[in-house]
């Protein structure tokens, strides 16, 4: 086993270990952080394979984008700090079954693929400009259609985000007006029993 292989196994162990931690962690924020490490590990694997462009995109999209969004949404929940209850046995059982099924499925596919013997030379060498041209190519193996479809999807997601975020302020009412006027706020006067009925004019 040479140094390269050792690095490969180390990275793989890191990815798998953090992935398992991500699904078994009791705290939701920690799960997100373990997921982050797992995704960074995948990027490291790409670097190991010398496909730097994919690695950089992996970091930009997953680490800088997806995980940050996940963390943001965790911030907005109430129970981000508290421990989640342990899942019931039935759920653990079914998830184990699902893992087993997934593992055997992918194992079968991988085992069925005839791998070539590893070579010492770089397997492929793609300049970044070629990737760019392929991405916007309309000819055979051109990716312009999927590229545009994905951007439309992202646009729709952005519009959806804005709509959800806008809902908190109802149309036509400013926040200033929503604030309660003095004399009508939530501090009820506990010290004095209500002896007399006195109408306090609420001018605002």
């Amino acid at each position, binding site marked *: 086993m040479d140094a390269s292989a050792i690095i490969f196994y180390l990275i793989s162990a890191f990815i798998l270990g953090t992935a398992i931690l991500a699904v078994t962690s009791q705290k939701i924020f920690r799960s997100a952080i373990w997921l982050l490490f797992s995704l960074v590990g995948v990027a490291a694997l790409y670097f190991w394979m010398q496909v730097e462009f994919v690695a950089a995109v992996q970091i930009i999209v997953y680490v800088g984008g997806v995980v940050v969004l996940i963390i943001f949404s965790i911030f907005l929940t*109430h129970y981000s700090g508290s421990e989640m209850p342990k899942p019931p046995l039935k759920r653990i059982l079914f998830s184990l079954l699902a893992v087993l099924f997934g593992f055997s499925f992918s194992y079968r596919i991988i085992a069925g693929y005839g791998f070539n013997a590893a070579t010492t030379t770089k397997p492929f060498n793609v300049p970044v400009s070629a990737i760019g041209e392929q991405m916007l190519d309309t000819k055979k193996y051109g990716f312009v259609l999927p590229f545009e479809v994905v951007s439309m999807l992202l646009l729709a997601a952005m519009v959806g985000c804005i709509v959800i975020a806008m809902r908190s302020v109802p149309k036509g009412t400013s*926040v*200033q007006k*929503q*604030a309660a006027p*003095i004399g009508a*706020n*939530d501090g009820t006067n506990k010290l004095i029993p209500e002896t007399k009925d006195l109408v306090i004019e609420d001018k605002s």
Partner: protein
Amino acid sequence: MYRETQIIEADNKADGDDLVINVGPQHPATHGVLHLVIRLQGETIQKVEPHLGYIHRSIEKMCESLSYRQFIYVTSRMDYLSAHINNHACAMCVEKALQLEVPPRARVIRVLMDELTRIASHELWWGAMAMDLGAFTPFFYAFRERETINDIMEETCGARLTMNYMVPGGVMYDLHPNFQQRVKNFIQLFNNKIDEYDDLVTGNIIFQNRTKGVGVLTKEDAISFGCTGPVGRASGVSCDIRKLYPYEVYDKVSFDEIIEMGGDSFSRYLVRIKELRQSIRIIEQLIDNIPEGDIQAKTKAVLKLPKGEFYSRAETARGELGVYIVSEGGTTPYRIKFRSPGFSNLSALDHISRGSKIGDLMAIMGTLDLVIPDIDR
């Protein structure tokens, strides 16, 4: 006796989405020990609740056991940035009760000192407010000029912050021989410096965006909340005691009462900056016209006020300071009430900061110009 700081947690009544934050008692923007409990929805303020009393010394109670000469010195510690004017208001109240005639020289000296104090106080406010908004450099610019005033004060009064210079019937010492020349030098220097301030802060687009339309206090609210001083005048309320109820020689000098109609933080800023020029104007008129003569009226060693109630008002850098003395005819006051401007100005804080962002709260607090000992007393 040490009491642990009360940290306010979200109560059950609150909406679950609200975030309750304790700003203070130790916080960079409160300039002292003010404790604000703010309820946030995201970054938007739902409610601001001041918790006072961290430096409450019960000055009013203390004064009840001090003689009419002594109690004036305690008041320097209320609004320590307008110490002269606090002392002045108290001295005026005692003089009103005793019907003392203050010599003309003392009157002019008092007004000069008041205006210098006002400039020094506004300087400190200007630097501190800019720092609240994240600009550090103005703080040093402001202190550069404020030091000059403090030096002038030190030469004449012997102190730099709590001067204790005003006594019933006049002032304590005569002016230092250098006083006139140094004040003239200062005025000459300072006129250019105000332009520099405008360049550095007033014209800055970020500063204007941060303050315009922030914390709007309408004229009706300003009156209802009892906001005075630059805060009230920025909302269009004419409340300058120097104009409305002139004392000493304020009716003999010409100066303008600065009134802005905006009511927002920027108006409050503008009022103070323009007041700096008016104070300079007053000093310019008086500095060459200090009459000769006594600096104190003849008074007895132990002052005894007649039975009755006396009220005097003075315009401090923060607004209207009222001194209300109830006398039973003895050598000590029966009851003293200080109507401090900061207390009333603070009470409007909750009203004007609702619905704005946390950053705005700092702009609002900065332009309300709170001095905490003035509020807690």
